[in-house]
């Protein structure tokens, strides 16, 4: 058995078993977030794909890859979204190098 099973994606509603009130609140919020608004569902699916990669959540990557295709994005556009997530992760790592500079400077003559 793997820790990540594809079929588990379909079992997410089981998370409402013990505190259904909290799960229902989460569901309502989650649904509202994805409706067409100032941003389109297509744009929101691309954001979801980028965040899914930044979080490295296999369920989210699977679901939002499909959501992107079904809202009309293509692999070029999806690849750009993934690069955005990657670039931010890389940049966020690199900017912390300043922390290292500061730490080294503090204890250096």
């Amino acid at each position, binding site marked *: 058995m793997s820790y990540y099973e594809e079929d588990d994606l379909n079992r*997410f509603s089981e998370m409402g078993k013990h505190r259904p009130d909290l799960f229902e609140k989460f569901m309502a919020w989650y649904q509202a977030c994805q409706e067409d608004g100032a941003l389109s569902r297509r744009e929101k699916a691309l954001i979801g794909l980028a965040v899914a990669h930044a979080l490295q959540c296999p369920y*989210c990557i699977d679901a939002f890859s499909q959501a992107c295709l079904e809202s009309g994005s293509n692999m070029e556009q999806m690849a750009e979204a993934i690069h955005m997530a990657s670039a931010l992760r890389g940049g966020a790592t690199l900017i912390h190098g300043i922390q290292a500079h500061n730490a080294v400077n503090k204890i250096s003559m």
Partner: protein
Amino acid sequence: MSKSLPVIEVRQPAITNFVEKLAAHGIRLRATRVEILQVNVGKLCNQACKHCHVDASPGRTEVMERKTAEQVIAAVHKYQIPVLDITGGAPELNPSFRYLVTEARSRGTHVIVRHNLTVMFEPGQEDLPEFFRQNEVEVVSSLPYFLEQQTDAQRGRGVFEKSIEALRRLNQIGYGMAGSSLILNLVYNPVGAFLPPPQSSIENDFKRELGTRYSISFNHLFTITNMPIKRFLDYLQRSGNEQRYMHKLVEAFNPETVEGLMCRNLVSVDWTGRLYDCDFNQMLDLTVTEELPQMIADFDPLQFANRPIVTGSHCFGCTAGTGSSCGGALMTA
């Protein structure tokens, strides 16, 4: 459009029988009146697309004979059928194709040809655009995407380039151009096991991209859901996507699409003259209900009005999300 969301879907035991699903929504699926005769003239095609529900290819030998084509025209004329929709295979490769078009047009029947674009480069077919123009045929052509990679992945290597050239030729004689009465519609099929995007949204993308990249114009884009039949079903099974895709179709069932289903105002004829409720039923050998005449020679539209429609699990493909038909989505997103 389905409101089901990525990642989170509340799971209930799904009804996977189409009739039961309709019944659960208080729907009995029956035809209205016959407005379209859709004739599949055979399985011969110059292409062998990976998603083809007909399983058409250059090697197929099932082709409608002249006698059957004459029976089709006799029915169209006798009953003044408003629309003759000719499909295949590549219908242009049938020796009776031009007979069907010219005879139907001679008495004002609107003719739609499901034209795969590349067939106009086959020997003897070079004048097809002019033939279409002279007969004021409505041309409906598959182009699964505005990029080469996706199109060739579904329809075969080199198809995209030829399709673009074919579209240019159709545009040159007025098809799909602003102010012209010559109609050129395109068809989008998902290149894989997923549902089509909202039709108006992807139509805008096609118009923008085909316009800016290739200066190509067209009238409308129809989004059509891939049916789990024949070659697409084989793909689903080979790729391990069958269960997931069927689940997706069932989950996305939208009762509001039923009113506009094409089986309600269309009768489908196969290359032997046999009658069906739609082209998909035809490929599954699901003939019209046995109480009705089975052959075009015995066809009478009055008997076919209000008939019960023969259904199967593939029907979930036409009722998923915003719905699907030979004329595209049945609802706006």
